[in-house]
Structure formats: structure tokens, C-alpha cells
């Protein structure tokens, strides 16, 4: 009866959800307008930002994978993950600055070309950090999370926060990593190239590249290659190996997995270790890119990667990857065209808006397989 009395315009508004859609259309149009304007104004600057965003996005992706795997398997937001990333960065710093781990090829086989030796050395450092982080995360899981497996979920969350505090402030002690900003020595020589209307070539020191060209360095190439390699490795482990199958099973249904003879605790520990290894690799790549390490460095990238994981649909591996790429783009675009100090706020605004449209994240419901 009430429906008949209503004004037809009001009825239409309610039926079509016009106002809510209008709200999003306005926000989306503003963003598209701003980005389009920037692209037309200065295409090379815009593409340069895309490159920078990709570099950041691939690092975030590696961290986000750890968040998403752990959440998928034990439903825990592992707040200590960002600090594991920090430990990864520091262990690579010590491996390079104190033990010259990146020079082992050159030292053992003097005939090897310098460049090849450096690349192999860099990968050695990355693998070293991955091992350290995997070990650390394995220990954390055994000490702090395993005893609480049957306790309310919030207890494990509080423990995760506690572990995060502990790693941060313990690292800040003088005899551990100290509370200073430390300059990071890159394990290879940085080379930069330009590409654009002026052609393609290497940038020599002291000579400016032609106007309107895009600059990228071997840092970018190493980050992208390492991330993609690790992503494929992870996909292989999850999809093709026995342990991956076990992980998917445990994520799907723990009690049944146990009945099928799967050692659930071991699988969970391995998941933590794999996630942490990826974070360790991300720590090395991040420090190579920004050439600086300090004890709080895990908080912001960790948070961004977490946002990326949620944005992509937490629990989904491709989702984490897509979310991280979006996050990287959003951060560089926001810093370049809106305001540098506001970029954290913009990252979270994007998250909230995306969650309103897709409450389980971008890939949240499409992928049925969750790890």
C-alpha cells in the first residue's frame, strides 16, 4: 500500500540504486579525469610513474603473498609479517656489508665476467635472506601461534602484534641492528637506460638523457624478474607439488585434512616459512631499490602489502598479485599528481571504496581455490 502512495521519482531512486552508483561514478570520473589529464599533459612523465609503480608493486606483491597465504590457511592477520620483511632486509645488509656474500663468485672463479658474477651474487644474497626469514617465521609460528591454535582467533592476533613489537624494538637495540638509518650497499653496479623518442641507450654519468624519454635501471629489471620467478615458483609449489596440495586441503578444511593423514601443523608451519621467504626476498629487493635500511622499515610496506592482499581478495594468490600492482600504481600516482604525504590515505581510501563495491576484494569470489 505504501508503495502505491510513493512518488514515482522516489521509487525509481530506490529501485535503481541511483544515488549510490552516482557517488561511485563521481569518484571514478574524478580519478579518470585526473589521470587522463596527466597523461595528456606529459606522457613520458606518466609512463615513468607507471614504471616506478610497477617496481614498487612487484615488491609489494612478494610481501602480500605471505599475508594472503597465512590468512588463507589459519585466518590470521599476521601483523609480524612486515617485520620479518625488515629482518630479511637487514640480514642481506649484513651478508653484503660484512661478509661480502655477493662477491663469492668473483672471489672463487676470477675468470667469470664481473656482471654475471654480481648477478649470481645478488641471487645468492636473496636466497640467503629467504632462508633466514623462513627460519625466523618457522620459529615464531612454533612459539607464538601454534599453542594458540584452539584459542579464540583474537588471541593469536594479539600475539602477532606482540611479536611485531618485539621484532621492531629488539632490532632497535644497539647491539642488534641499532636505531639508526643505515645506508645499504647494493650488491651490483647500477646501470640505467633510457627509451623514448630520442632512441634507446645507456645513460652515461654526467650526460642527460634526451628529453621525453623514460628511464629505467637494472634494479627495475632485477625486481621484476625475481618477483615473477618467485611467483611462478609459488604457483608451481601450490598447484603441482604434494605439499601444495596439502596446503590447499588444510585451507579448505582442517579437520578433514587431518583425517586424511595430513600433518596439519607441519603444513601450517611450512606455509608460514614460504610466506616469510617471499617477504625476505622482498626485503632485499626493497633495500636495493631504496638503498636504506632501518628498524621500522617493515611497517609501511607491510601495511601497504596487507592492503594489497585485501584489495585483491585475501586468501587468493593471483588476487594478492593484482592488488599489489594496483597499490604500487596508486602510491606512485598519488605521490606524483595529488600529494606525497597523502599517499597512505589514498591507498586506504581506494581499499575502502573497492571493498564497498566488492566486499571480498577483487578476486575474492572468482577463485574458489584458496591457500
Amino acid at each position, binding site marked *: 500500500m*505504501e508503495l502505491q502512495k510513493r512518488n514515482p521519482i*522516489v521509487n525509481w*531512486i*530506490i*529501485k535503481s*540504486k*541511483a*544515488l*549510490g*552508483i*552516482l*557517488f*561511485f561514478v563521481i569518484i571514478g570520473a574524478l580519478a579518470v579525469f585526473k589521470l587522463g589529464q596527466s597523461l595528456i599533459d606529459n606522457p613520458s612523465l606518466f609512463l615513468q610513474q607507471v614504471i616506478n609503480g610497477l617496481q614498487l608493486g612487484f615488491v609489494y606483491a612478494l610481501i602480500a603473498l605471505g599475508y594472503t597465504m597465512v590468512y588463507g590457511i589459519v*585466518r590470521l*592477520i599476521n601483523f609480524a609479517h612486515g617485520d620479518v620483511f625488515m629482518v630479511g632486509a637487514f640480514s642481506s645488509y649484513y651478508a653484503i656489508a660484512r661478509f661480502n656474500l655477493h662477491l663469492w663468485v668473483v672471489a672463487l672463479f676470477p675468470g667469470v665476467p664481473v656482471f654475471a658474477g654480481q648477478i649470481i651474487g645478488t641471487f645468492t644474497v636473496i636466497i640467503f635472506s629467504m632462508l633466514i626469514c623462513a627460519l625466523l617465521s618457522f620459529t615464531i609460528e612454533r612459539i*607464538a601461534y601454534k*599453542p*594458540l591454535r584452539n*584459542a*579464540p*582467533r*583474537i*588471541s593469536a592476533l*594479539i*600475539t602477532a*602484534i*606482540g*611479536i*611485531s*613489537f*618485539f621484532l*621492531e*624494538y*629488539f632490532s*632497535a*637495540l*644497539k647491539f642488534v641492528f641499532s*636505531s639508526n638509518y643505515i645506508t645499504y650497499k647494493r650488491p651490483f653496479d647500477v646501470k640505467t637506460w633510457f627509451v623514448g623518442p630520442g632512441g634507446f641507450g645507456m645513460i652515461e654519468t654526467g650526460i642527460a638523457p634526451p628529453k621525453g624519454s623514460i628511464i629505467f635501471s637494472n634494479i627495475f629489471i632485477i625486481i621484476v624478474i625475481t618477483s615473477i620467478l618467485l611467483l611462478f615458483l609459488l604457483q608451481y609449489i601450490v598447484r603441482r607439488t604434494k605439499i601444495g596440495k596439502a596446503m590447499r586441503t588444510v585451507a579448505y578444511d582442517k579437520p578433514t585434512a587431518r583425517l586424511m593423514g595430513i600433518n596439519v601443523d607441519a603444513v601450517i608451519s611450512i606455509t608460514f616459512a614460504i610466506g616469510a621467504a617471499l617477504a625476505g626476498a622482498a626485503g632485499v629487493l626493497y633495500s636495493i631499490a631504496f638503498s636504506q635500511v632501518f628498524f621500522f622499515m617493515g*611497517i609501511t610496506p607491510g*601495511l601497504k602489502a*596487507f*592492503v594489497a592482499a*585485501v584489495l585483491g581478495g*585475501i586468501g587468493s594468490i593471483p588476487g594478492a598479485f593484482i592488488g599489489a600492482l594496483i597499490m604500487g600504481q596508486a602510491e606512485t600516482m598519488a605521490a606524483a599528481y595529488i*600529494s606525497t*604525504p*597523502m599517499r*597512505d*590515505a589514498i591507498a*586506504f*581510501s581506494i*581499499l*575502502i571504496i573497492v*571493498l*564497498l563495491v566488492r*566486499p*571480498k576484494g577483487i578476486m575474492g569470489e572468482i577463485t574458489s581455490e584458496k591457500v
Partner: protein
Amino acid sequence: MKHFKSNTLLFILGSVLVFAVIQVLISTGILNAFWGTILRLAGVMAIVSLGLNLIYGFNGQFSLGQFGFYAIGAYTAADITYRWTQLHNALGLSVILFAGLLVGAAIMAIGVLVGKMRGLDTLSAFAIYLGGVLVAVLIAIRIGILTSAPVTALLATLPENIALTIVYLFAVLLGGIIAAEISFLFGLPIFTLGSDYFGIATLGFTIIIKVLLDNSDTMFGFEEMKGARGMIGIPKITTWFWVFFFLFFTVVVIRNLLNSSYGRAIVSIREDETAATAMGINVAYYKNITFVIGSLFAGLAGGLYAHINGFLHPNTFSFIKSFDPLIIVVFGGLGSVTGTVAASFGWALVLEGVLRLVLPEGFETWRFVVYPVLLLVMMLLKPAGLFGNFEIPFIRAVIPPLKKKDEAVNSASSKEAA
């Protein structure tokens, strides 16, 4: 006296006794300024945590946004008193007073309107509310600027002390009201998300507020807030009396709320959302009202906090610190008012007081190394919190018992997992 039960009488007597003893200790100087500040901070933290306990412990909404509303309350209140004491005008007071009133009126009016449009989706409703609130704020700013001079003149006729106290009380209350109104707007669309996603969105809110405060002077023109340099020059007028008064008020309000039909609806949503809906409870409405009340307390506490040290910095409301109320609530026992109050006092006394004194010279930085270890050990030994379900008799009488010791606090989240 006939209407008072003995529990109530005992509670009031006990509160007055506790207040009086500490007040005497502070006045006579047995508790020095250091411990006085810690006690006030503990009281403020107790109010924030009680707000969170209402949202998370009693209604089952996993919120990490409490410190965002705390920050809003703190900066709102600080701005009002700063303008009164340093700039000698009531511009802040009158603008924010009218903003609080008009926005409240607008929300209620739109609430009636939206209530008539049955079947309206949440986002459209949010868009209507947002538009209405923006209009109300613009009008409030105009009225506030116009009435600023007469309000200043009126307050100037009063003795200085009384005028300052009036401005201070208005500031604290308005801090709470503004925080509550913002929480209403923010909560409206967010409640459609699942429990963990709700937590993440509210965490995002805290971080957005922190970033906005970092840039408050350069981007938003609030020169007096000084952005990331920290706001100074706020009068230090929060005494133990005011902290205790507001803490008492909070406990009584929460107790009475839980005793009402609202409280039973709130707790029933924690126990089982589907069953609550089946019983005819408007889940979205009660979730929102709980969130608003919890945020109101956070805002009040923020107003009190701003006037303790006379200094505010956005880093106080950072990502790391925003876990403090959650830690306190879980520590004290989810859904235990007594536990929350005890835990916040214990937390502040141990972390700020005892650890500072116990650690030897040169080991000050170990404070935050010992704290997480304590946290870990406590969590491993008592996962259900220090007090679990324990309540003092005054509150115990009204709270429905938890369904099962561990499962109930977790029911909202485990449902999603299943």
C-alpha cells in the same frame, strides 16, 4: 534510598572512596606528578577501551578504528580550548557547537526521510546522509562565525576560571559528539562488510585520520594544529576529578545500556546474527548505534587526553599505538567491563610506570622489548583474558552470560570461516 539496590549503593560508595583516596594522595603530594599523569592516562585509556569493549566485546564488531575517533575528539577539543586560551575568542567553540547540533539534526531528519524510503540500498542512503551533513556543516560554519563575537562577549562576563571550565567541558563533550557523528557516517556503508573486512576498513580509517592530521596545517588550513610538528599550547586542565567523573559516567552508561532492551539486542547480535534477525532485531541499526556510542566514548576520552599533557602529536594516534585499546580489551577479557577498567590501569601503571622504574640505567629502550614478551606470556597463559567473564556485582547483575567461554567472542568470525 528505596529504589537503590545494595549493589548500586556499594558501587557508588566504592567509587567515591577510590576517587577520594587517590585525590587525597595526589593533593598531599604522596603521589607525585609522574604517577598523577599516569593515573589520568590510565583513566582516559579505560574510557577508550570501554568504548571498544562495547563495540567488539559486546557487539562482536572487530573494530580497529577506535584511535581514529580518539584522535578526532582530541583535536576537536584541543582546537576549541586553544582558540579560547591563546587567541581569546570563541570561534572554535561556536563553529563546532553549531556543527555538532546541526549535523545531529540533519542526521536525524535524514534518518526519518530514509526510514520512509524502505528498500533503499546502503550506499544511496550514505550518499544522502553525506550530502545532508555537508550542507549542515557549511551552514554551521556561517552561523558559527556570526555568533562567535557574542559568545566571546558572553563568556568574558564570567570569571576567568569558570569560563575556562565551561569551554573545557563543552570542548570535551563536543569532541565526543563530533567523533560520534563521523563514526555514524563512516559506519553506515562499512557495516555491509564481513567481520575481518570491517576491521581492516576501520584500521584504514585510523590511518587516514593520522595522515590528515599530519597535513592539517598545510592542506586544510588549521594553522594552530601545526601538522606533523605537534600541537602545543593546549591548557593542561584535565584533573583526576574530570577523568574519574567521565570514567564513572562511562561505566554507568554502559551498564545501563546493557541492562536495557538495546543492550539485550546488542549482545544477541554478538551471539548469533542470524538468530537475532529472526527474532526481529534490526541488526544494521543496532550495530550502527553501538559503533556510534563506542566512538562517542573514544571522542570524550580524546578530549580529556588533549588537556593532560597540553601537547598533541599525530604519532600518538599512529598505526602501532592504535592497537593499545584492543590489547587492553582482550587482556581484561572480552565482554568484561571490570576487566577492561582493571586492565587499562594495570597496562598504564606497568608500561609507563613500573617498567620505567624497574629497568636500570641505560636499559630504557628495553621497555618495549619486555612489554611484548609480557604480552606473549600472558596470551599463552590466559588466552581468555585476565578477568575472563568476571564482573563486580553492580555490573554482573545485568549482563547476560556468554554462550560458551571461548566460542562466543569468536562466533562472528568463525561463521565467516565456515
